[in-house]
């Protein structure tokens, strides 16, 4: 199982537990509520994990965690279930409208638990 490596700036990051890794279905997302922030977390086919903001900037609805996960030219993506714009899971850039970018967050697995850092 590969996992995203995060460069920690010693002691500053706060990691929040999200769920046990097996609870994330491969190629499907889930949403976590972390300190009032809605974070969409995804597990790709190869096991890599990604975390992005859950709000779809085009409709305003908090639904990106329910989009279809896939790839575009090899880059892992999620498509908004509202109007189908596609976002990079790596950079948060909307690949159909590169001027629009959504937040991304560091994510890791510690002892079988998925953790996300929003600050």
């Amino acid at each position, binding site marked *: 199982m590969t996992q995203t490596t995060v460069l920690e700036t010693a002691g500053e990051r706060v990691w929040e537990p999200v769920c046990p890794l097996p609870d994330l279905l491969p190629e499907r997302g889930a949403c976590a509520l972390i300190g009032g922030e809605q974070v969409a977390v995804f597990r790709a086919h190869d096991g890599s994990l990604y975390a992005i903001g859950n709000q779809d900037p085009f409709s305003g609805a908090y639904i990106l965690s329910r989009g279809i996960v896939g790839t575009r030219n*090899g880059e892992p993506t999620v498509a908004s279930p509202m109007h189908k714009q596609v976002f990079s899971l790596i950079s948060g850039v909307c690949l159909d409208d590169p001027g629009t970018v959504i937040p991304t967050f560091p994510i890791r697995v510690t002892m079988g638990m998925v953790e996300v850092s929003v600050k």
Partner: protein
Amino acid sequence: MTRVLIVGNGPSAHRLAETLTSKGFAGSVTILGEEPRGAYDRVALTTHLTEGRDLAYPDIPGVTVFVDTKVVSIEPAAKTVNGSIPYDVLVLATGSAPFVPPVPGRDLDGCHVYRTIDDLDAIRTSAKTATAGVVVGGGLLGLEAADALRGLGLETHIVEMSPWLMPRQVDEGGGAVLKKHVESLGLTVHTSSGVLGIEGGERVTGLRTPDKGLIEAQVVVFSAGIRPRDELARGAGLQVGERGGIVVDDGMRTSDPSILAIGECALHDGQIYGLVAPCMTMAEVAADRIMGGQAAFTGADLSTKLKLLGVEVAQFGAMAGALDVTYLDPVAGVYKKLFVSDDASTLLGGICVGDAAPYTTLRSFVGAELPAAPSDLLFSPTAVELPGDAPVCSCNNVTKNDVTAAIKEHDLTDVPGIKACTRAGTTCGSCVPLLKKILTESGVDTGSGLCEHFAHSRAELFTIVQVRGITTFTQLIDEHGTGRGCDICKPVVASILASLHNGHVLEGEQAALQDTNDHFLANLQKNGTYSIVPRIPGGEITPEKLIVIGEVARDFGLYTKITGGQRIDLFGARVEELPRIWRRLVDAGFESGHAYGKALRTVKSCVGSTWCRYGVQDSVTLAIDLELRYRGLRSPHKLKSAVSGCARECAEARSKDFGIIATEKGWNLYVGGNGGFTPRHADLLVQDVDTATLMRTIDRFLMFYIRTADRLQRTSAWLENLEGGLDRLRQIVVDDALGICADLDAQMAAHVATYADEWRATLDDPVKLRRFVSFVNAPGTPDPTISFTTERDQIKPEILQVMSR
């Protein structure tokens, strides 16, 4: 005026006549053919069975064609045929005949060859009373014939003398991979096996082999090679080869200067050509000579590429060389081999099984310096840039420069455009992928495939999944696609898998393919909440059930609205509320209405003869029966239906995908209607039929649509694009012109038998229920961003803040 008389009306004859006409030949052109129809595309013969395709070539203006006219003699001295028909130039284009080995029993009823449309029609007739078939010969044509028998529903065997299949095109390694492919389609291959005889009384009962015993079969197809039809030439004293074939020179002239021979019957430089491309070249050389030119036929390369049900096989150039580089992937069934000179710089030839990409790009490099390292070429041959003078279509002698020039000059945007302008791709079709690539290189977006992950259309993917028995997205994309899919291809594949296997849409890997509506079995609305539509078959509902819907809506604070499909939509449910709402609905006897799926929605009905003064049939009962029959059926797009109890049409059935209107005698079925953005009235498919016939016809119509439609193509657009239109559809689903109705019926029967309510199954499964939370780390917490105001005593979503960009 020169009178040109052509004997035989196959592809060679047709090309000759066409070339003469297009070059402005001043004389007369007459064709005599023994088949009962005009010339047709023999290369695509098999599609006559599998797709019912019309293979006829277009008529050539000014050319006189006699069908059903066999030439039995030539009188060279008098310059006539059949004793009286005169010519100045006679062209023999008699092609070849299948070779039938002299084994006992070869004339029994049920024995066939595979050469003409009549042969195929006869095979189809025999197959109707058969369960198994054997093809004698495992070459190119034998495999095609085997494929056809399989398509006719027969258990199919192939008997081949050589130790491996297609010995003329592939070596032993390729043969092994090919055999695996063929066997994975359910065919049985017997290599290194001869034939002792055909057994049976009047009708074939089996084929006896020396060491594998009796293969039981009621159909036998001989495909053990071809023999040039040179009998006329022999009779006229023309020179023929020792092993057959009419001897010709570089100008296609036989030993009689007034008689030419072209195509498969001609023997040039000791060689007979059994492929269509050299035949076309010969026809063009002959046309030039007849018009006084000096064109010469100097031989042709025997490269081949073909595709049998997703398995590509190709061979080009030499089949041996000083060095060779092989790529073998036994799991995916891919075998590629290149032969190169001893200094590894010159390409000599290659063999491909399972992936013919190297053929398309590398064929033009045969005899030339390799454009990259051989191993790179085997891995990603499409990356190779073709030189401008590389021949792209060898059937019609078109180079890459010709194609690029045509694209620029005529602003072409698709392959049909290139075909029309240059003729490239019009004969064997193997260069079509290359044409697409040149289009892309020229800056034109081709987009024929579904998306970047699949170069196939939905219908092609359906066939692949069905034929290869694929059950998961991962298997399909690994073997036939690239990357990991997207929001376009994943739901399409989910729908195909659901149509073919009817498992739960949230089972295992399937869950990851569904778009959010299918994933939560509800319809996403603009503020992130969902709406719920319980099934109300035919729009008929008891007061008790109406009350349950009212109570559920009240208790969960949902907005309610009556839909156009005669049911009730409940809006404003949060994800985590869906299972609780459905628990109540399921307990009261409701089931999923599939409003969220590309599936059957409703069968609307008028009140019909039970209550209405005008009604002539019971439209409500029929509507309920239909809705229950087709509920849960996944399809390329949503499906709507309606039933009206008389011609007054109160249910608006003709605006539906399939609509039924009662008549005094039974039912009229209309198909391909649509409301919505581009309204279309449905067309009458069958008239005054009884209920059983009606259902059977709808079964077939729906299954045929599901098999062949594009992604998100409603029945209206599908019907308009269907070649042959409504008449063709009627031939297929009523007259069984393709011989697939039994298959379609079985598929629908399987759907009906395996239907289960998705919501009930979800409620019974704790694993599936776990996804119905707003937050994984706080399952009890509702989404705080969802809120409502009120309007006319019901809830209304609060407008969401859209992020500033």
